[in-house]
């Protein structure tokens, strides 16, 4: 089997993979980071030297086998190196969310008892210093960016480069120890510990072994033909399992290049400069990009506007799926690929010219026939159509033309010009968003995964991609669904345990290795694709016994660009009500266009015209929900547009931006009561936490609206 095979090659740990890459791909790029305006590059051979120096520095500093090293900072090559350096010396890296406030950090650092912290900059160091009294185990803090830290007390504080220098200086005496520790790593030793964001309660530390990480990386890399030629952009939080698998697991297994953006603000510019071939993003990123494109198209000239909409409508009609998808199995452009590409481009240009000539000739004859009304008659027929050719040739040529005029330039602007495989996961993606990117010829697919599974549970294979399912079981993954509808899986990626939490481990993972996902879903007849309904524990019942699945409705709402977040309530109640957050970018842009003045988020959210628009959306959703016989009870009877954005700093969302239902229910109990008691207004005061941890409060009077609901014909008949 594959497992034993990779074991036999001696590739049982990430440091071992690093050694292999340093010889096999010695001169290929391993990491790039934009700094001082230039992409700085490290080859695998250089990377190995850097990591070795750091690992030696760790031993020199007193890191022991089994220690925990917390890593807090934005995505930078240095931070990734420190993870592998920690593994090399037998320690366990624990990446943390960098935007976590000191309080949250203190729990995680205390729970794993980290002796060492590697912090990105002054901000992170300050947070650690703030909570260090509560962390008896903490011994040393290593920082990367020395800016502003010169005057700090340096008895327990060290600069990253100094640690590396000390490591290099002590090379001869410590290298033996490093080799011994590196060789002691086996397939079942701990690779990394990742804290789940925890939609309920305290975060749990998920322990993943080398087997979990390497097997998952290997299977998924083979699934998508990933090779050393890929380029990815690492911008997702390092504490998230997805980033660990993509930027470390798969990168080390395949030997491809990890690119880090210059700063979080420049992510979109850097994306375009790098042009990744393999990309991963939560739906939110695609959503933002689509919103931006649409907003900017509104400002475009008439010709561009018309061309864009003409070709987008055409591509969405299925032509994109048929003619646009990249067919190549490798990301690198061979001579043959280049020729095909040039040929297609030439065809696109050719047919653009051909269409112009064709239209000119046609207009000439129209003029002969209709005289002055020629233009009106001409416009009545599709003026861009290639009328001379029969289907499917016509569509093919038209798509090639669109590729030259619209799809290609747009993909290039978005930074998706070279994408061969792109994934989205974490939340459901809006069908329109999904369709938009796919019709451009971007192979965007969905996957379903968890930290506990080392990401992969199901994935969509090329050619079987749909917006409403999450695909078939990933390689080596077995799935079963129990009577209540909850999904269970078993795979080589199944986590070892929750750290210091045997009860939770036992309740999640049974003796045979089956893990409960906590999600309810079913396999679709025929296609064998998995469909997710909702979190199993969130699925409830209304007072009259009808099914209540909040996410189903919330997702439908969130697909409107105006709505950023929605929370549905109704479990054990008579009817459903909803909280809605508007999207400031989209609604703000709309307000600007319509000369609606607003001074703040709160004011815009309470504007009667905004409420009208949202009400229209809600009523449309109600109609669509009513179609589903099982869930027709989830229609929204009353709703309120919240006066503040739900925020992770206030604990309302997780760091991965999932809604924390219970906390919201408690915090806004007054608004929920008002929604159910029939009043038309509610005054409330809410506590908010600013980014630096200070607290404040905002007061607001919110208008509650009633939405029209569609009566269930069956129920009406029964009554």
């Amino acid at each position: 089997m594959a497992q034993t095979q990779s074991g036999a090659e001696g590739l049982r740990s990430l440091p071992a993979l690093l050694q292999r890459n340093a010889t096999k791909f010695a001169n290929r790029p391993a990491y790039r980071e934009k700094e001082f305006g230039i992409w700085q590059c490290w080859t695998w051979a250089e990377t190995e030297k850097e990591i070795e120096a750091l690992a030696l520095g760790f031993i020199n500093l007193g890191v022991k086998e089994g220690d925990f090293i917390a890593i807090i900072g934005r995505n930078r090559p240095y931070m990734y190196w420190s993870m592998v350096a920690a593994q090399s010396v037998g320690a366990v890296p624990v990446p943390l969310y960098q935007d976590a406030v000191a309080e949250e950090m203190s729990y995680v650092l205390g729970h794993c008892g980290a002796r060492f912290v590697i912090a990105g900059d002054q901000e992170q160091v300050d947070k650690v210093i703030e909570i260090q009294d509560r962390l008896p185990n903490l011994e040393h803090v290593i920082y990367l960016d020395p800016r502003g830290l010169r005057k700090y007390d340096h008895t327990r504080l060290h600069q990253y480069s100094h640690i590396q220098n000390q490591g290099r200086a002590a090379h001869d005496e410590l290298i033996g120890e490093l080799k011994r520790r590196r060789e002691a790593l086996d397939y079942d030793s701990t690779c990394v510990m990742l804290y789940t964001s925890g939609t309920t309660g305290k975060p749990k530390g998920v322990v993943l072994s080398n087997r979990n990480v390497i097997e998952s990386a290997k299977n998924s890399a083979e699934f998508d033909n990933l090779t050393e030629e890929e380029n990815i952009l690492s911008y997702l939080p390092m504490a998230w399992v997805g980033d660990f698998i993509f930027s470390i697991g798969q990168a080390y297994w395949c030997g491809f290049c990890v690119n880090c953006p210059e700063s979080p603000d420049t992510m979109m510019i850097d994306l375009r400069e790098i042009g990744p071939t393999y990309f991963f993003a939560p739906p939110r990123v695609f959503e933002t990009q689509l919103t931006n494109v649409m907003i900017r198209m509104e400002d475009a000239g008439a010709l561009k506007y018309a061309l864009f909409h003409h070709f987008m409508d055409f591509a969405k009609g299925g032509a994109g799926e048929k003619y646009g998808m990249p067919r190549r199995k490798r990301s690198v452009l061979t001579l043959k690929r280049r020729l095909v590409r040039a040929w297609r481009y030439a065809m696109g240009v050719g047919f653009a010219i051909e269409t112009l000539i064709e239209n000119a000739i046609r207009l000439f004859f129209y003029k002969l026939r209709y005289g002055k009304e020629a233009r009106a008659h001409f416009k009545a027929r599709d003026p861009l159509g290639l009328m001379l050719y029969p289907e499917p040739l016509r569509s093919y040529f038209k798509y090639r033309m669109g590729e030259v005029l619209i799809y290609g330039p747009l993909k290039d602007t978005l930074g998706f010009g070279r994408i061969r495989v792109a994934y989205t996961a974490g939340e459901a993606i809006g069908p329109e968003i999904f369709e938009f990117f796919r019709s451009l010829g971007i192979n965007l697919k969905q996957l379903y995964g968890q930290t506990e599974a080392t990401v992969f549970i199901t994935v969509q294979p090329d050619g079987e991609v749909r917006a409403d399912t999450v695909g078939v079981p990933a390689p080596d993954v077995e799935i079963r669904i129990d009577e209540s509808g909850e999904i269970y899986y078993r795979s080589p990626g199944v986590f070892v345990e929750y750290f210091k939490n045997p009860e939770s481990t036992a309740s999640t993972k049974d003796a045979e290795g089956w893990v409960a996902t906590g999600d309810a879903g079913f396999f679709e007849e025929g296609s064998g694709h998995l469909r997710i309904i909702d979190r199993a524990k969130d699925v409830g019942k209304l007072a009259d016994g009808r099914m209540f699945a909040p996410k189903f409705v919330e997702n439908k709402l969130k697909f409107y660009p105006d709505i950023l977040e929605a929370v549905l309530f109704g479990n054990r109640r008579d009817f459903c009500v909803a909280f809605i957050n508007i999207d400031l970018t989209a609604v703000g842009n709309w307000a600007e266009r319509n000369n609606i003045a607003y001074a703040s988020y709160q004011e815009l959210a309470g504007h009667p015209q905004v409420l009208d628009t949202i009400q229209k959306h809600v009523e449309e959703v109600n109609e669509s929900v009513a179609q589903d016989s099982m869930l027709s009870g989830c229609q929204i009877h009353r709703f309120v547009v919240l006066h503040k954005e739900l925020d992770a700093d206030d604990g309302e969302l997780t760091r991965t931006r999932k809604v924390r239902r219970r906390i919201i229910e408690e915090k806004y109990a007054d608004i929920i009561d008002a929604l159910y008691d029939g009043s038309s207004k509610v005054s409330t005061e809410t506590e908010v936490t600013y980014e630096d941890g200070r607290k404040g409060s905002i007061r607001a009077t919110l208008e509650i609206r009633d939405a029209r609901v569609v009566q269930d014909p069956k129920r009406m008949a029964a009554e």
Partner: protein
Amino acid sequence: MLDASGDGYITEDGRKIGGVVMEMRNITLRFGGVVAIKNISFDIREGEIRAIIGPNGAGKSSMLNVISGFYVPQEGEVWFRGEKRPPMKPYEVARQGIARTFQNIALFEGMSVLDNVMTGRLTHMKTGLMAQAIWKGKAEEEETANREVVEKIIDFLEIQHIRKTPVSRLPYGLKKRVELARALAAEPKLLLLDEPMAGMNVEEKEDMSRFILDVNDEFGTTIALIEHDMGVVMDLSDRVVVMDYGKKIGDGTPDEVRNNQEVIDAYLGVAHD
């Protein structure tokens, strides 16, 4: 280092301030019959943050213009690094290592942020017009070296994301930051800031204050600034000069100035009887 006469002092937060860098001796500046500055003397020491405050029309900006060589005072002497400074053109002053920002932003609106900041390196460029036009050898090397310095400053002030954006498209707060970047690009010994925080909101002020402190800390630049926001001035500066109607009415640490009766009168007003 710059001056032999000074003994210096230690600030509250433990920074070591060196000797006198710039000394103004009995400066008087008139515009026709209007006396903008009346017989003012004060000094700026190496490594310190020196604030000049005062109500509107007190003569603060005129004072800054005297330091930067834009105005030549009718009476009095300007001593820089232990030497009496003869009347100079502003570019000569810039070559001596004095850079400034303006109250009303004075950037090249049509140029990108990067190009704007590069202009700050002009005093460090030695190749001539022809060499620059031909762009080979020395001119190219020089530009590369200058670009490196500029990129460090862009990184320092966290404006990477707008590197290539034309300045006219930027919001006010960022323009101010770009102006600071341009002044820093000259690698000045003495940095003059004319109301760096005017018209900013609290968050932008906090950011700007942090940058000013970081500049002082990281590059050891001596800073003289004019500011209206008392909170900012008292937090940032090591010593403060207070002016009113062209006269100096106070000079000392923020605490001393705060308790100075004349200063209180000037700011709160006093009954004339």
